[in-house]
């Protein structure tokens, strides 16, 4: 069965543009303001939302997302809160996925987590530290419950391994544009385009590019060769750097509007 996320990419292919995918950690800066920030992203033109499950040891994240996760966890954000925010996002009319380190899924229960995603109307889960070698249970349960499995591939993923990873994906393939942690960069790595081209030789799935995208110009550049443009830290910074939460939310919306223009080719 096609998820809302699958349907989004089919529609955008006919519109000949890339999807704008926005990331926000659940419970940042608070549960209510997180939902308001996601609404602002959607209002500004974000096509799909990644809700981050804040984790105590985020080894793949740079300082911006680390600080946001820490702030969220200090308020006691739980799995239940993550799913509540997922449900609220789906009600805004956009496809939503959860992005999480593996341990919270294992702790919650692997099948239970997949089931809960479906139950709350979510489309899938991005699992950046679940290697394909450890993914058998997850693959089985997500297939059984119609949950997209989004794995991340990196510029260092070899030619032999690349099809083994993309074969396990559904929804889209997440291409990490560079070797490094999350965070804004002044330019999008030149590795991104060649990685997307290599991925396309292994799968017909949409390919989205993340890590380091923060401006309309960068979004436009990536939209020329990818099916989705993922922006995370730049949205979070709007909230972290604004003097009040109202201004932060307004800035999130403004950034979304600008990026949404960028992904139109």
């Amino acid at each position: 069965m096609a998820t809302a996320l699958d349907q989004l990419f089919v529609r955008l292919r006919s519109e000949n543009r890339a999807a704008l995918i926005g990331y926000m950690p659940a419970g940042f800066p608070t549960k209510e303001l997180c939902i308001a920030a996601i609404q602002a992203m959607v209002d500004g033109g974000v096509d799909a939302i990644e809700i981050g499950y804040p984790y105590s040891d985020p080894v793949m994240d740079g300082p911006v997302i680390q600080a946001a996760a820490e702030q969220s966890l200090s308020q006691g954000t739980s799995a239940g809160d993550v799913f509540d925010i997922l449900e609220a996002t789906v009600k805004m009319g956009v496809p939503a996925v959860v992005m999480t380190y593996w341990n919270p899924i294992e702790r919650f229960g692997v099948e239970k987590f997949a089931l809960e995603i479906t139950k709350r109307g979510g489309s899938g889960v991005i699992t950046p530290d679940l290697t394909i070698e450890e993914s058998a249970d997850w693959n089985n349960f997500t297939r059984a419950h119609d949950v997209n499995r989004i794995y991340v591939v990196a510029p260092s993923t070899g030619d032999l391994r690349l099809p083994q990873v993309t074969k396990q994906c559904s929804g889209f393939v997440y291409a990490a544009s560079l070797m490094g942690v999350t965070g804004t960069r002044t330019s999008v790595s030149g590795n991104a385009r060649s990685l997307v081209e290599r991925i396309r030789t292994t799968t017909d799935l949409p390919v989205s590019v993340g890590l380091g995208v923060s401006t309309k110009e960068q979004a436009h550049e990536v939209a020329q060769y990818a099916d989705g443009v993922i922006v995370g830290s730049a949205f979070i910074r709007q909230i972290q750097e604004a003097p009040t939460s109202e201004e932060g939310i307004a800035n999130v919306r403004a950034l979304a509007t600008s990026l949404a223009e960028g992904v139109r080719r």
Partner: protein
Amino acid sequence: MNSPVVASEILGHFGPYGGRFVPEALIAALDELAAAHLAAQHDPEFQHTLNELHRTYTGRPSIITEAKRFAEHAGGARIFLKREDLNHTGSHKINNVLGQALLTKRMGKKRIIAETGAGQHGVASATAAALMGLECVVYMGEEDTKRQSLNVARMKLLGAEVIPVTTGSKTLKDAINEAMRDWVTNVETTHYLLGTVAGPHPFPSMVRDFHRIIGVESRAQMLEMIGRLPDAVLACVGGGSNAIGIFHPFIDDVDVQLIGLEAGGRGVETGLHAATITGGTPGVLHGTRSYVLQDANGQTIESHSISAGLDYPGVGPEHAYLHDIGRATYRAITDDQAMNAFALMCKTEGIIPAIETAHALAGAIQVGNEMGKEAVLLINLSGRGDKDVQTAADYFGIPL
């Protein structure tokens, strides 16, 4: 190497534990490392180079000392100390570090990064980097840089850069997070010289292989000294590298009890401890599945211990497996029990042990009293206590 325990280690798994839970960006480097380690193990030249380094630089084989006066407080059992504290740099850590530094050169990398808690692994890494002409960056929790300022100075004298980590609990766990972030970014030029038997495959098996020399030597030494194997082998367990090093060659000797002593902090029942197997649950941390101190949402719980080197909320996956199958047992030793054993070792044997090691000595007092006069205990005296003089002076109220 045909025991059921060893045979279960397939592709970095120990039963349900171990494996790899890391970003895809690191897979190529982990594959390269696993291949380099495997090739080196079967390369006589590599083995010769490492053995010569151990003979002429580390000071191996390390001796065994019988602790007769200490034993009077441990039920009269005979107690033998494997003196890893006499190694160059003052602990067992050098065994692994020299091995991995040689592998780094073999892989053509010029920069190593390391995490450190007590500073012992950081000092050992800085030492190996100086010896082999490698650039060295050590990540250390800010809290630990204060507790172990002497070791920070030692690393700097040896030419390493020490980066204090200010995120999270500012201890070992956060230093590992920061080292992994560095590695993801610089993996093409950099080797992450992980200091314990945790982390993604191949680290748990590779680090163990470099520390097996402790057990291999002491097994032969015991046979030579008393004509038989010990009844029990004891070692402290944080990540678990010194323990697995001395345990592993005894795994097939089913009559030899293997006992790991975890840091019980202020008592496991208080929640303020680092006894991961005793008080934790299975989960994933830092790239491997093992026991973890975690809450209901899978968030890591901060650990507590008077000993910076044991202050870690995870443990090596092979220990988790040895625990589950019952081949090794693990108990928690409180801060106070450890410090009592620390003082006793100082005053009865003239040996100032590391506070980490004092947990194993406290275990020996318990086990010796349980097993009685006929028992023979082998303790891994994993490190010396020079670095802990400040902490011990504070604890015992000795003015400095």
